[in-house]
């Protein structure tokens, strides 16, 4: 079975190819945007006999700045785009085996574009779902 920490770190390493984007495993009390938080959502075991494959669903929440900043919205659009050096999907899929730890991975969708409240501050954020296939 794959090491979940290594899978998460593999996603984070791919995200680190985006200039200026920080990554974290948990939501910081006072995030310093732009930051991507990689979290495990679901594990589906026994996708093949003899534990041949397990499916891991990660979410990547990208927080870009205070919700009322126009710059934050433009930055988030760039992260949500399907092309460009800031595209989250392209970055995560830039190394689809996550450094040899997974069979494959794919960014399936972006959801929950909008504001999030963290420590009484409202930020603009979006969430990306990442499907990882591993042993």
């Amino acid at each position, binding site marked *: 079975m794959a090491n979940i920490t290594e899978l998460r770190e593999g996603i984070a390493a791919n995200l680190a190819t985006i200039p200026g984007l920080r990554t974290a495993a948990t939501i910081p009390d006072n995030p310093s945007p732009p930051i991507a938080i990689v979290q495990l959502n679901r594990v589906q075991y*026994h*996708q*093949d*006999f*003899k*534990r*041949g*494959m397990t499916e891991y669903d990660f979410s990547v929440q990208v927080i870009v700045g205070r919700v009322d900043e126009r710059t934050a919205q433009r930055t988030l659009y760039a992260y949500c785009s399907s092309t460009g050096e800031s595209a989250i999907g392209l970055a995560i899929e830039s190394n689809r085996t996550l450094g040899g730890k997974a069979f494959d991975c*794919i960014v*399936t969708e972006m959801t929950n574009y909008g504001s999030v409240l963290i420590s009484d501050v409202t930020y603009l954020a979006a969430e990306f779902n990442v499907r990882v*296939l591993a042993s």
Partner: protein
Amino acid sequence: MPKQVLTDVVVQLNGTAISQNVNSVELTTTSDAIETSSFGSAGWRTYVGGLKSGSVTLSFHNDYASTALDSILYNLFNTVATVAIFPAGTPVGTSTPKYEFTALVDNLAPVSGAVGDLAVQNLTWTISGAVTRGTTA
């Protein structure tokens, strides 16, 4: 186990274990129903068993790497291959039987899926000859 969840099914193809690329297997056997109805059947149809046949349906998660599943299957196309299925895993025993037979690999689907889908092959092969159920190694 009085009931059993299928998790450790072993599937071998010509002796090579391919279980870790298989997520579903179904082995079915049937026999022809030969009618023997007569005036003495009290108005009911009667039958005896005739020729037996079978098929095996396998759902594969494809792997295109060198010597991996896709190449194994492709090299077997239009040949008769030996298939062994161990529904309760190995080793074989009275509670962990093995079903063995040869099947004609008469269809493949090397590429199947839409964008974003897992690469799969869902195949049904016709069994050629007898299906044996073994309980000894």
